[in-house]
């Protein structure tokens, strides 16, 4: 599912909210931007039942220029990290272990 498919799916489901497709597009853009701003400021994101995003530190290291073989000092940096929440873990794994069957339910 791409971002535009996510927007289409949301637009199709939110009839009760009466938002135009363009509004849903703005919503998705605004939410992802707000999440990016939080992480760029070193703030965690905690969404119950979905998961949490935090920053992990990568210490400085000696890298190598793959073309010249020369070593280059790389500074320490932070990278975004996602830890899936319990509900997400269970749903993904349950669907994996018991694939949907037409005669089920």
């Amino acid at each position, binding site marked *: 599912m*791409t971002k535009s498919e996510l927007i289409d799916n949301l637009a199709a489901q939110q009839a009760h909210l009466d938002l135009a497709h363009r509004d849903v597009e703005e919503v998705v853009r605004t939410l992802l931007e707000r999440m990016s701003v939080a992480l760029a400021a070193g703030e965690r*994101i*905690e969404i119950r039942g979905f998961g949490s995003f935090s920053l992990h530190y990568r210490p400085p290291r000696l890298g190598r220029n793959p073309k010249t073989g020369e070593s280059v000092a790389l500074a320490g940096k932070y990278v*975004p990290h996602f830890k899936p929440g319990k509900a997400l873990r269970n749903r993904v*794994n349950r669907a994996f272990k018991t694939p949907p069957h037409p005669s089920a339910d």
Partner: protein
Amino acid sequence: MALTKADMAEHLFEELGLNKREAKDIVEMFFEEIRAALERGEQVKLSGFGNFDLREKKERPGRNPKTGEEIPITARRVVTFRPGQKLKSRVEAYAGTER
């Protein structure tokens, strides 16, 4: 202080003028839509932010940390997140005081 769904709904109210009820619903639906796609076994690609990928893990030996008893960790499917280049470069520069 962590960013929560309530903060995100509040932000939609302030930025886009959605009413609070709508904002709360659409934030809930946004995360539910991503969960549902992953549950269907679909990768989720949000350009500029990152991809939620699915990985299948084989069964491997494990141990009950309390009793030391050996119990296999069953085969499973797990979600991983790969941040996009844009998010990575925005975060890289963060010079936090704490690790």
